[in-house]
């Protein structure tokens, strides 16, 4: 799994590439925690290039989401598709996660 950060105004977009599985999902969690230490306040997690997620990956997203919610900061998860969407649906978390269909929509929602 590869993680890249890019900035769009005040928003930090994390592009996740690869599989979010039991061996590497902790990396995303660690990255977000480091960014929180550096006072980043707006996160967009882009899952466009993620085709596989397991319970560890879902767990990482839950941890990130609950941490950011508790700190009253902003998070949007975007471009969820295929079996990743299916696994989140099976876990019934589509309503729990803040989700948009595209990065553009995520950026727009950040401004609201």
């Amino acid at each position, binding site marked *: 799994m590869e993680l890249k950060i890019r900035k769009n105004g005040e928003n930090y977009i994390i592009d996740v590439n690869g599989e979010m*599985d*039991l*061996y590497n*999902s*902790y990396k995303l*969690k660690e990255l977000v925690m480091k960014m929180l230490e550096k006072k980043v306040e707006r996160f967009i997690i882009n899952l466009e290039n993620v*085709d*596989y*997620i*397991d*319970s*560890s*990956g*879902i*767990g*990482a997203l*839950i941890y990130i989401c*609950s941490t950011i*919610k508790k700190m009253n900061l902003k998070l949007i998860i975007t471009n969820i598709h*295929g*079996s990743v969407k*299916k*696994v989140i649906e*099976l*876990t*019934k*978390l589509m*309503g*729990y996660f803040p989700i948009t269909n595209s990065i553009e929509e995520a950026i727009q929602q950040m401004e609201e």
Partner: protein
Amino acid sequence: MSDKTYLSEIKEIRVDENSPLFDKTGMLYKEFSSDYRQIRYYTLLIVQSAPIEIKEINLLEQQISEVIKNAVKHGNRSNPAKKVRVWYSFDLDHAHLIVEDEGEGFKDLEKWNEFNRKRLECLANQDFEKLADFVSFRTAKSDENDGGNALFAALEYWDGGFVFNSKRNAVAMLKKFPHKRH
């Protein structure tokens, strides 16, 4: 407004040694040592015999990987001396698995069912604030890599049943794939 569909059929993890799902007749068999690093590889060895039509890209693989992970990590505590035994059978209509470890059994099964019931109540009430307390099932032995959500999805995915034996160290599961009408 509450959404009763979440409560209309509360699924539970059952214990039933005599479930027909434990009938191993005609099933293929593999056994593995409990090497945490090999979990996804073991899964691929199993899932490769499934017809592509039921793989749903990698959903079947992902769901099997979760039960093998539970056996290796939570059952056998990743002790390579302990084995995970897998019986499996796939065709266009079904995926049937039995996964057995050498651990002490899923002792928190009742706690899990209770936790899941509360989780489904939060969903029925659309109470996402309270749901935050029920998104991840933790035990004293959970670590930070445990998502604590694998069995929520498993109960939904394995729609033909997800049943433990009396010792609770083996779980049998069935997924049905309805034929598409042409």
